[in-house]
Structures are given as C-alpha cells and as structure tokens.
C-alpha cells in the first residue's frame, strides 16, 4: 500500500483509516487512500473483496443499509463527509453515481435527465432544456435520442440506458462520478462506447470506477487500487500496478493466476 500521504496531486477524496462493518462482519479494513482530482481511479479485485462497498462510501449510499457501520474518515475538500454539518443530499449532488445495472426511471428520456434538477427545485423550462441537451451530448447519446426525448427510457437498449444514466448523473454537474461496474451488464460494443465516454469525461470530472475487467482498468484508469478481502493491497499508478507491482499478490491477480 502506498504509505505516502504527502500526495503530489490535488485530491478529490482523502480516506483515512476507514473500517466498515456489516453487523459483525468487517468488510473494509483500515483503508487509507487519496483519490486524485480529474483522473480516473479504478478499483479491481476478486468478487467480495469490498471494492463495491468502498465506492458506495463516497456518496454515503451505505447509509441506506441497516447494520452497516463505518469508522474512520473520508475528507472531501477538507470536510469529513460523515460530519453532522454535511447534508447528504448536497453530497450526492456533488458525487454522482452510475450503477452496475442500468437503472433509468420508468419515464421519458427527458424526464430522466431533468429528474435531478427538478428534485433540486429547478422548474425553468429553458434551463432544463439546456441541461438535458448538454448532458445527453456529454454522455454521447444525444444523436440517438434527440428525436424521441418523450419516449419512455425503458425502451432504450442496455448500452443506451447506461449512457442515459451517465447523462442523468452529469446533469447535476457533479465533481465526482462513481461508477460501480458500469459495463458488466453490457455487450462489447456498448462497453467500448462507455469506455470512450469515460476517457472523454475525465477531462471534466473525477471518476472512480469499480471494474471486474483488468483490461478495462488498464485501458481507462490513471491510478488503480487492488483490493483483497477488504484490504487495499496496493494502490499506485495504473502502469505500475499492471507492469511493476510491488506486492506479489497484485502480480498474481493482474497476471491472472487467481481471480
């Protein structure tokens, strides 16, 4: 693990001694990590290693799980996100999330993208129109849906639905986008489109992505963390993790000896 806390990059999050328990089971163990701003950070590791649990810490989605207890700290621009002064709704508008299964709401494409802003009380049609268009454009799906914005989003293909979900997350102009295995339910072509999109989005957003696919992590991420049984075994630049890992377990995993 990278013990160096004097980071050379601007950080979006600083995680300090994070422990997470589901009832009595400890799912995450003493995690320390600095997430760089405007880069793609990938979490890899075998199933059940805690990477999805960890990504849900950044927008406090674990709050919704009963019996889930978190110790330790996560700083977001100097503020500890579990602090009482932090409004979790505000946090979630700053830290967007894209889920493993595309989960558009059963409403029109337009309403899906406008949903977040409407929940913030934005009613002005002009603003909504503009945000819907720019978000869909940024998510590289505008050309496919611009002629039927009123069609129910459930009728889109899986890959389109996932890009719509990314557009939905973008609509709130978050600083960070969390992606929990965003391509695991998609076919290779749709996956390529999402990966291209991520590469494009990282110019504007900080992206944290959980992935099962090591090649995906190698292709799109700047830094990679390798998780094993709730611990971060190694966290470094992606090149180092894949070509010159410090820990033999990392090497075994990335070369496919287990997983």
């Amino acid at each position: 693990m990278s013990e160096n806390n004097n980071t050379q990059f601007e950080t979006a999050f600083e995680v300090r001694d994070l422990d997470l328990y589901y009832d009595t089971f400890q799912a995450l163990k003493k995690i320390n990590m600095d997430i760089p701003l405007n880069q793609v950070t990938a979490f890899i590791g075998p199933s059940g290693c805690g990477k999805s649990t960890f990504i849900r810490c950044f927008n406090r989605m674990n709050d919704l799980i009963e019996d889930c207890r978190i110790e330790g700290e996560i700083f977001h621009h100097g503020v500890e996100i579990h602090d009482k002064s932090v409004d979790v709704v505000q946090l979630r508008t700053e830290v967007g999330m894209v889920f493993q299964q595309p989960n558009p709401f059963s409403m029109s494409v337009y309403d899906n993208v406008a949903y977040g802003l409407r929940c913030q009380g934005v009613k002005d049609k002009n603003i909504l129109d503009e945000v819907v268009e720019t978000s869909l454009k940024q998510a590289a799906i505008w050309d496919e849906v611009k002629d039927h914005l009123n069609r129910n989003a459930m009728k889109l293909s899986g890959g389109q639905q996932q890009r719509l979900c990314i557009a939905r997350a973008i609509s709130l102009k978050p600083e960070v986008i969390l992606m929990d295995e965003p391509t695991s339910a998609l076919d290779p072509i749709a996956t390529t489109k999402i990966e291209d999109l991520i590469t494009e989005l990282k110019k504007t957003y900080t992206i944290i992505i959980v992935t099962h696919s090591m090649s995906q992590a190698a292709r799109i991420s700047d830094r990679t963390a390798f998780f094993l049984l709730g611990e971060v075994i190694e966290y470094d630049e992606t090149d180092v993790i894949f070509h010159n890992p410090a820990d033999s377990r990392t090497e075994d995993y990335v070369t496919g000896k287990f997983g």
Partner: protein
Amino acid sequence: MEKDINNSKDNYELISEKRTKRRTMYKTIDTIMRGLFKLSGLISALMIVLIILFVTIKGLTVFLPSYENPVDLGNFLTGMRWRADQQDYGVLFIIINTILSSFLAALIAFPLAVLSALMITKIAPKRLSGVLTTIVELLAAVPSVVYGVFASGVITSLVDNIASFFNYTTFGGNSMLAVVLLLAIMIYPTITSMAVVAINAVPESHELGSLALGASRTQTNFKVVLSSAKSGIFAGLILGLGRAYGEATAVSMVAGNAFVGPTWNPFGITRTLTSTMLSGMHETAGVDYDIRFSVGIILMIVILINNFLVNYIKRRIESGE
C-alpha cells in the same frame, strides 16, 4: 464373452423398448391434460356467456310489445323517476347516482389507499408494516353484510350528526353521504393491497438511482416509486371502482331508495343500480321483478365503460409523461 455382448445388447433393446413405452404414456397423459384444461376453460367461458345471455334476454323482454305490460325503452333510459307503483321506471338518475357515489368513494379511498400502501411498503418499520398489512387484509375479508350493519348503525348516525350541524335533516342518516363513506371504507382495502403489490414490484435499483441523484426519501417515493407502480395502482382503482359499482347488500341498507333524482345533496337519500335490483326483490313479481334484469344490463355496461375509461386515462398518463 460373445454371449455377454449379446446379453448387453438385449438389455439395451429392453431399455429402449421401456423408454418408448414410457414416452407413449407421457404423450397420452399430455393429451388428456390438454383436454382437461380446454374443458375447464370452456366451462368458465360458458358460464360468463350464459350469465350475460340470460340477464340480457330476460332484461330485454320487458321492453318487447309481446310483454304483458311493456315498459317504454326511451323512458327507461332517460327517465328521472322510479315509481314501481305507477309503472314509471326511469333509470338515468339511478345511473348518475351510482357513478357519483362510487366516484366520490374512490376520491376518498384512492389517496388514502395509496398513502397507506407507501406507509406499509416504504415508511413503516417492519413490525408495524406487518400489523398494517394484516389490518388491510382483515378489512378486505369482512363480509359486505357486516359492513352494511356497521354502516346502518354507525355511519348513519354520524351522517345525521353532521347534517344537523349544517341544519339539515336526514332520513335517519340514510343518505348519499352514508353510501359514499361506506363504499370508501369497502374499497380502501382493495386498492391498498393492489398498490402494495405494485409498489413492492418496483425494483430497488430505481430507488437507489433516485437517492444517488440527491433526491430525498419523499421525492423518491412520490416521483419514482409511485410513478413506476402506477400501472398496478390503476388496476387497484379499477377493482375498487368495480366493487363500488357492484356492491349491493351494504349499499341497500343505507341508500334510502329515493324515487326521484339524481341526488346531489349529500344528506339526501339516494338510489343506486344495485339497491334498485336488490331491495324488495322477493316480495314482488311481474314487471317490477323482471325490470331488475334490465337494471342488471345497465350495471354491466356502466362497469364496462368505467374500465375502458380508467384504462384510457392510464394509457394517457403513461404515454403523456
């Protein structure tokens, strides 16, 4: 050695023969079962056809010239008076009464039912939600005659008190308001249980998606959960309205059976299609008996149109948004 091989060959043939036999047996069973399914489908379809046919024929005879004392169809459909003693049978005001009281009942019960369903599925802690579910199930299981007794004992006196507060008098509380309140109570469990099922069918991922977009719990429940569940909730509304239109026993006990209408005053007595069909059915004969079948036809048509309309509204809402 050779013998062994022959032996095993015999075994093989024996086995394959058994298989063929079994396969023919399965095929026969399949054929028999398919016949049984067809038969039961046919019987239930036949029942519906027979009921409709019988009611329609019997209901239409009173309008035929060959009938002893024929009723004028035009007057029947447009009339605003129902005087059996004067051979005056007008059903239009009864249709209006029926639709009005059922609609008002749904207006009260529907929002309550949807909110209760949200409470049961999303808000209440597990134990409370179990208790509430049991209550709703019990409400649905209460026989309608028991609701009727309750209504004529409790709701009527309540209505009477409300009426005297507004300086109105009632016929012992028998009134449209009593019918509306009674029906609201009766259809509430129907709509609630359908809404609970519909809400539970909304995938959790939709809720998480909404919460992750910074929506509050309340926003999530109303904008995402209810909007995804609306199809099932509307199905509940259709069932509830159907029950309201068709409820006879309890309604007859508090309707008061007005001779003229339609009834717009909530404290005035009313007359519904079902109460017209039911009350005094066994003490009468001739036209007054046969015309109840005509009212039955009207009731079936009202329910049919109602279902079409609700389905139409549902489709409009689904595609319009």
